[in-house]
């Protein structure tokens, strides 16, 4: 059973298996284990980012192409549903229509960008996507009558997803079963299903071709695979999943704005997550996103304590200022690319391999 759910791609490391199981249980039972608004926000964000980072890993880790437009697709999803729900009658049909329109737009855009620039070098694609994504971000903040500009769009969700709505009169095991509870499980369930689908894709024959292209595109082409076609399909697939992640995230926040979806900082965050977790492993997305989002929310407090304790020492309090947490993740990122190209997951697996050859 587990074999078919995981598509035969097991964690292949005891520590990794335990960590993944722990993350799965924590997310699956989050409303019961961590009551309160903020922990549930963190858990929902972890779910969405696992999906987003996994879809990016399909491009970066499996196909070997660097895109800087992933947040653009994330944003298209968020804005699609936000515009639909704020303009139309609030309901499931608005959600469906917004999602469908967003997915189609993402497909068309990623197809065009792919056709236009995937024939040439990886660097060219990276530069073009950077330009297009920054253009899109400016566009979203300028077209304020459609997108709400810098303020973004706050919108209403269908009734059963609203915080005030109650499914059960009495709390279940001390947890109110209401709109937030249902929304969380909607986000969790969809993310899980799409993550498993991505795992299936990378372990399919199609996924093997992508990896062949990553390792040596010339040889893959010589074997008769049309690399442009495969790359473009991979980039479209990644874009669609990122769009769906954007839909989920904005459904959870009941808000979409430039800072939550389109910001270049989020692109950097995704890169950090995928590289630190482990490129080309899918499970790296789970580890990377969990570590990153938890660090984002809780590391700053630890750094503040440390920074306060170091008062009087020159420079150190500034280096450990709570706002400088990205500095340390950036250093970790650079070190990972040099020394652990397969990130945390790769390290854990390598340890296992070393132990078994002894």
């Amino acid at each position, binding site marked *: 059973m587990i074999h078919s759910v995981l598509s035969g791609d097991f964690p292949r490391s005891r520590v990794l298996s335990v960590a993944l199981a722990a993350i799965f249980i924590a997310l699956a039972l989050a409303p019961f284990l961590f009551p309160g608004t903020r922990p549930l926000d963190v858990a929902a964000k972890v779910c969405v980012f696992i999906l987003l980072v996994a879809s990016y890993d399909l491009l*970066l880790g499996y196909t*070997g192409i*660097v895109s800087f437009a992933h947040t653009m697709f994330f944003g298209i999803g968020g804005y699609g549903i936000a515009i639909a729900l704020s303009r139309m009658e609030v309901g499931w049909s608005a959600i469906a229509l917004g999602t469908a329109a967003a997915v189609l737009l993402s497909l068309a855009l990623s197809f065009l960008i792919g056709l*236009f620039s995937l024939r040439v*070098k*990886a*660097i*060219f694609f*990276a*530069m*073009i996507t*950077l*330009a*297009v994504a*920054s*253009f899109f971000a*400016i*566009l979203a903040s*300028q077209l304020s009558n459609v997108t709400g500009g810098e303020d973004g769009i706050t919108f209403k969700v269908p009734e059963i997803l609203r915080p005030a709505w109650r499914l059960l009169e009495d709390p279940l095991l001390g947890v109110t079963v209401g709109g937030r509870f249902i929304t969380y499980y909607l986000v969790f369930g969809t993310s899980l299903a799409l993550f498993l689908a991505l795992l299936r894709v990378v372990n399919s024959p199609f996924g093997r071709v992508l990896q062949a292209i990553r390792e040596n595109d010339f040889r893959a082409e010589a074997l008769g695979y049309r690399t442009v076609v495969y790359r473009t399909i991979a980039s479209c697939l990644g874009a669609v999943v990122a769009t769906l992640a954007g839909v989920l995230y904005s459904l959870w926040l009941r808000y979409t704005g430039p800072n939550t979806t389109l910001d*270049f900082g989020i692109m*950097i965050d995704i*890169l*950090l997550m995928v*590289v630190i977790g482990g490129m080309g492993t899918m499970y790296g997305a789970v580890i990377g996103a969990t570590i990153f989002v938890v660090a984002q929310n809780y590391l700053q407090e630890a750094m503040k304590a440390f920074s306060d304790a170091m008062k009087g020492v020159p*420079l150190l309090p*500034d*280096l450990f*200022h709570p*706002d*400088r947490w*990205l*500095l340390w*993740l*950036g*250093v970790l*990122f*650079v070190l990972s*690319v*040099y020394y652990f*190209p397969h990130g945390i997951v790769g390290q854990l697996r390598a340890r296992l391999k070393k132990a078994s050859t002894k």
Partner: protein
Amino acid sequence: MNLGVRQRADWIPLALTAAVALAALALIGNPSTWVTLTVAGLAMGLLIFIMSSGLTLVFGLMDVMNFAHGLFIAIGAYVAASTIKVFSAAAGADSFLANLGAVLPAMLAAVVVAGLLGLFFERVIIRPVYGQHLKQILITTGGMIVAEQLIHVFWGPDLLPLPRPSTLRGSFLIGDMAIEKYRLIAVVIGLAVFAGMLLLLNRTKIGLLIRAGVENKEMVEAMGYRIRRLFVGVFVAGSALAGLGGALWGMYQESVTVHIGASMMVLIFIVIIIGGLGSVGGCFAGAVLVGLVANYVGYLSPKIALGSNILLMVLILLWRPQGLYPVSRQ
């Protein structure tokens, strides 16, 4: 030959630029507005050229794309802001020479610091990942994250004022044409840099080696020249120029934030793609074209001004998929 000089020069892109300017004159109708816009466009284009020329040469020579190039721009602007603060008495004076006494040290400091940082960056960040594009993109992006944060540590997270000295403000009035003084200065500096670069590339031994290296690296090495040392030199020079461009751009905007580099990067990428990766002449033509189009369209219909650069890039790539002046490579 890719520099648009001497043998079989390709004049079509330059003619295109002139045609764009003339078409804009017809559309705008008012010659004095047109002159103002053209000078503004040239100034913007030449500043972008100063910042991007190093990046395109580095790519042409060693196939290295530095996504952290914006960092040198930001450093140049920050160093200039700090230097001007030190020379604030001279910068505040009402004489052109005294002002120059503040601006020149600021530009010099920006160039030196950005160059030194480039030396360090090449050694620590880029050298280990020669020849691996994917890792280059990742590692230079990572380097930029760390460096931006370090700028926050040293200069603080807030916007830094970079006041332009008093005699560089305002504009010359010729008839009813208003030409901003600072833009004229930017044009002069930009043309000087371009002329210097052409002289270096076309009239010196080092320039010959660089041009040969762009076209066929192995052959130059086989002749006994160390292309890597040449590359370090070009990288440092490119970083220093980016620092100079950053200082000038910061003074143009009169304020500096850490995002100055990242926001310029998008324009720089568009320019070097339009010009043809690795080509200095193409970079110049592309930068001027981008600067002019941005200013004309911004005046004619501000709504599409945002997309004008992307649109320009798409049109040019449809016409010449390798850019205006493709680099022939073995």
